[in-house]
């Protein structure tokens, strides 16, 4: 009986293989690992935002029960440990390099943010380590803190780092200011908007953890860590901090419970446990408390901008001028400098034909937790600025919000399209995604819904954003010329086993994205091997040759492309073997999904026949071809990829309480070719939840002394199931023209398009209250104040 297997290739919503272990409690997250003889580390952190360390007394702590060691920054300095490196160097307007102050693993002269690690207590149990850490006597000389960018740049502000005058990291720009100023001088109208992009805390559900091990008999170190990119950690920690060669350092990122960017960076705790394990020759394990995560995981966003749009009399955009301040926090995190520059300012054309753009960015140090990439990384900031500006421009010119966008769209026949801010878009159809979203959200029927809601005493509003982003990070030479200190290719190895199953080694890492299923689908589609027989290996530097990890929506665009190239090599070799086996010319061999055929005949060989021959090379072209069937490809992308789309939010406000309820959310995204529609929907839904969180709920708040007021989930409003609406998610596909899969990436688009759609809807709901603009989050308190403080304007 022939049973037709369900289709598992590209385009199928294959249910996930990894779910079996997650659903039965058999996930292997870093804190789940326990090693013989392991010790536990507790990190002592600064309670002050800015202070000099006058002295550290660890004697009492070291004598406490179960304590094996107490280490400080001075101990690390004695061992000549390097500081935590920054992976991207930005240059100032005058060509000089940015200020790049040292970032010690454990602070030892000064502390610069609440949460700055100063010492570590290592003991037999976590409780003993904690008790000991609390007994370390720190002598601090408290200094005035600069908790905001404004305070940090004020005359007489406390200097956070010697060598960073005025607490400025860099003053960068892109574009020709004189050309843009001229466009503004000739404009019929200039629309100006001041915007804040609120600081966020990523809060992946799994707190960070790290387990360091050292084998004295072999000299091998192993670090198990909650990372999105174990090879990057091996490189940065090995080369820059601990001076361990790669061949003696294995980094494993096992199951990781979410990242969203916050688990990209090389953090102090990774170096602390690895170094300590070496010194003590015992495994050392650290797991963050959630409150500890709040003050040690990199935060996101935190921009203050002034944006100006120059328009002609018909609403065509003549130019854009932006001035942004971006908060770096107390130290430079691994990728921080590139986020508000090359991942932000280069997106300021968006979906529009804006001919000239100038953007200057000042990156400022403050006495707060370091800030770095968080889902979207620079692109949500750009989209928020552009899409709020478009709505304000529409209101001021009287042009319909949708028509203003449409009339400025890059036409569908204009691709490849060179923007004035370095990026060249390969493909896109912004009219299609806009039209599809307007129809799905019933934009046309909205006014009737507004009137009906008003009868119920509710203020209803609708808003859209037509966003574009750049991901599939990144062409190595391009980013290298822009200051990146790493390549951004990806690696894939395809190992066909003798009896035909396949193991894939990928440098990409899955921390929720479902690679064990979706990457197997690529192999099922191209090589014809069933998903159940394809094993995806990731997250272990001992198994996978190299890799740059997963972030910037790159795993499929770059990692998947590497796999495709490796499979091309497998097929090429397979054809030569098949030609030998079938005594035909290699040019006459065709391959389709697992079958090699002599063209025009019914003579075939299955992939398994080829793999058996390759590993048992008795009937084999041994003079010309080595045995085996395993190929590796390194893929360096030719360009970024450019997903884009349209998000539409519909809200209702209760004027009595100011509460904004999400009524509907519609997303139409162009993410290029869709491999697994179910996975894409899930990624977009998750991103939208984070975007709605930014728009309505989340804010990281510090007081003027740099104390973190939103220090736990009691005060930081995480989105819950009843905060979020059902979301309608659809895709419209224009293929990426420059990678083998035609994919653009979908991991971040949800968080990029949604915040401006929501705020545009809220402002629309408040249109009778004279609200020009509103900062995120649009909390009930803010809305209630507007409604009750604002004069209710009579409708025309």
């Amino acid at each position, binding site marked *: 009986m022939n049973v037709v297997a369900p289709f598992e290739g590209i385009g199928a919503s294959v249910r996930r293989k990894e*779910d079996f272990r997650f659903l*039965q409690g058999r996930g292997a997250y870093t804190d789940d690992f326990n090693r013989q003889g392991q010790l536990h580390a507790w990190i002592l952190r600064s309670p002050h935002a800015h202070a000099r360390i006058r002295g550290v007394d660890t004697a009492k702590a070291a004598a406490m029960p179960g304590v094996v060691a107490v280490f400080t920054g001075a101990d690390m300095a004695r061992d000549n440990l390097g500081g935590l490196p920054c992976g991207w160097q930005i240059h100032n307007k005058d060509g000089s390099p940015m200020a790049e102050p040292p970032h010690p693993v454990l602070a030892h002269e000064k502390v610069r943010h609440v949460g700055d690690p100063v010492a570590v207590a290592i003991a037999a149990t976590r409780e003993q380590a904690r008790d000991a850490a609390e007994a370390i006597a720190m002598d601090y000389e408290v200094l005035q803190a600069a908790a905001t960018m404004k305070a940090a740049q004020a005359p007489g502000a406390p200097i956070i780092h010697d060598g960073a005058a005025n607490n400025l990291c860099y003053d960068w720009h892109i574009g020709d200011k004189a050309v843009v100023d001229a466009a503004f001088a000739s404009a019929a109208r200039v629309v100006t908007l001041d915007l804040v992009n609120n600081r966020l805390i990523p809060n992946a559900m799994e707190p960070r953890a790290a387990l360091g091990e050292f084998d004295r008999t072999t000299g091998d170190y192993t670090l198990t860590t909650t990372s999105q990119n174990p090879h990057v950690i091996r490189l940065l920690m090995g080369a820059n901090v601990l001076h361990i060669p790669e061949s003696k350092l294995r980094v494993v990122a096992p199951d990781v419970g979410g990242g969203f960017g916050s688990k990209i960076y090389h953090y102090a705790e990774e170096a602390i446990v690895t170094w300590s394990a070496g010194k003590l020759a015992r495994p050392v394990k650290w797991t963050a408390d959630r409150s500890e995560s709040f003050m040690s995981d990199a935060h996101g966003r935190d921009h203050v901008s002034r944006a100006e749009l120059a328009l002609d009399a018909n609403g065509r955009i003549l130019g854009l001028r932006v001035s942004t301040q971006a908060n770096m926090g107390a130290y430079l995190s691994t990728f921080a400098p590139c986020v508000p520059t090359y991942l932000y300012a280069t997106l300021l054309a968006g979906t529009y034909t804006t001919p000239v753009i100038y953007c200057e960015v000042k990156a400022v140090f403050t006495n707060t937790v370091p800030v770095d990439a968080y889902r979207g990384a620079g692109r949500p900031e750009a989209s928020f600025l552009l899409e709020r500006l478009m709505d304000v421009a529409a209101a001021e010119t009287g042009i319909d919000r949708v028509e203003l966008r449409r009339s400025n769209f890059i036409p569908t026949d204009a691709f490849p399209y060179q923007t004035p801010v370095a990026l060249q878009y390969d493909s896109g159809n912004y009219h299609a995604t806009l039209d599809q979203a307007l129809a799905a959200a019933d934009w046309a029927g909205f006014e009737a819904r507004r009137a009906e809601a008003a009868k119920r005493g509710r203020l209803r509003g609708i808003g859209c954003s037509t966003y574009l982003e750049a991901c599939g990070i990144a062409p190595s030479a391009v980013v290298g010329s822009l200051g990146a200190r790493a390549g951004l290719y990806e690696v894939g190895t395809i190992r066909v086993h003798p009896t035909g199953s396949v193991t894939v080694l990928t440098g990409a890492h899955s921390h929720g994205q479902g690679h064990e299923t979706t990457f197997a689908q690529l192999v099922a589609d191209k090589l014809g091997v069933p998903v159940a027989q394809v094993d995806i290996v990731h997250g272990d530097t001992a198994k996978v040759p190299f890799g740059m990890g997963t972030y910037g929506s790159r795993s499929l665009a770059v990692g998947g492309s590497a796999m495709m190239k490796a499979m091309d090599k497998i097929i090429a070799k397979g054809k030569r073997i098949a030609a030998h086996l079938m005594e035909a010319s290699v040019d006459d061999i065709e391959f389709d999904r697992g079958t090699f055929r002599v063209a025009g005949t019914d003579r075939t060989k299955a992939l398994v026949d080829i793999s058996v021959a390759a590993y048992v090379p008795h009937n084999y072209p041994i003079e010309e071809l080595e045995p085996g069937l395993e190929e590796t490809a390194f893929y360096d992308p030719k360009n970024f990829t450019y997903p884009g789309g349209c998000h539409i939010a519909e809200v209702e406000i209760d004027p009595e309480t100011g509460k904004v309820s999400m009524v509907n959310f519609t997303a139409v995204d162009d993410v290029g070719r869709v491999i697994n529609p179910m996975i894409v929907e899930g990624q977009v839904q998750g991103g939208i939840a984070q975007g709605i969180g930014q728009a309505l709920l989340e804010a990281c708040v510090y007081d003027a002394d740099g104390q973190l007021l939103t220090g736990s989930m009691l005060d930081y409003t995480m989105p819950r199931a009843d905060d979020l609406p059902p979301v309608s998610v659809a895709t419209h596909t224009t293929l990426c023209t420059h990678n083998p899969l035609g994919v653009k990436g979908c991991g971040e688009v949800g968080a990029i398009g949604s915040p401006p759609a929501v705020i545009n809807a809220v402002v629309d709901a408040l249109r009778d209250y004279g609200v020009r603009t509103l900062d995120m989050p649009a909390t009930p308190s803010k809305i209630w104040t507007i409604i009750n403080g604002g004069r209710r304007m009579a409708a025309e």
Partner: protein
Amino acid sequence: MPQVTLTVNGQSHTAEVEGRTLLVELLREKLRLTGTHVGCDTSQCGACVVHIDGESVKSCTTLAVMCDGASVTTIEGLARPDGTLHPMQEAFREYHALQCGFCTPGMVLSAIDLVQKNPRGLTEQQIREGLEGNLCRCTGYHNIVKAIAAAAEVMHGRRSEIARAAE
């Protein structure tokens, strides 16, 4: 040191604990049942939810000594010995209601309790409100709500198997 005897997933255990030991610590560290997770320190997130005597409880806010004589079910104890998944586990997979998997054990156990307590069914709004004690950062809850609705149909005998998710 106090001693506590409790049944976990049908097996009896006796352990010496400190007065301050949390149930989740007993499960993860003494019994090496690491399926129950710790996601926060203020009892917000629900990653630690288990069933104690049939009801969902946050094991991070329960002292081990309070569980003397109790019967605890963790995520490891849901599937049948022959590997057949609980309808809620099946539904979560069918509807793609998990991504990184970290909130999933607590989410599944909370969901089972929610459905068990509402045999006549739940509206979407009631499911969303019933999940207030469980945070997920990955999925946006959309598919979790769908999975729970689908599982409820099977758990209350209105369907014999989990309905396929719409393509």
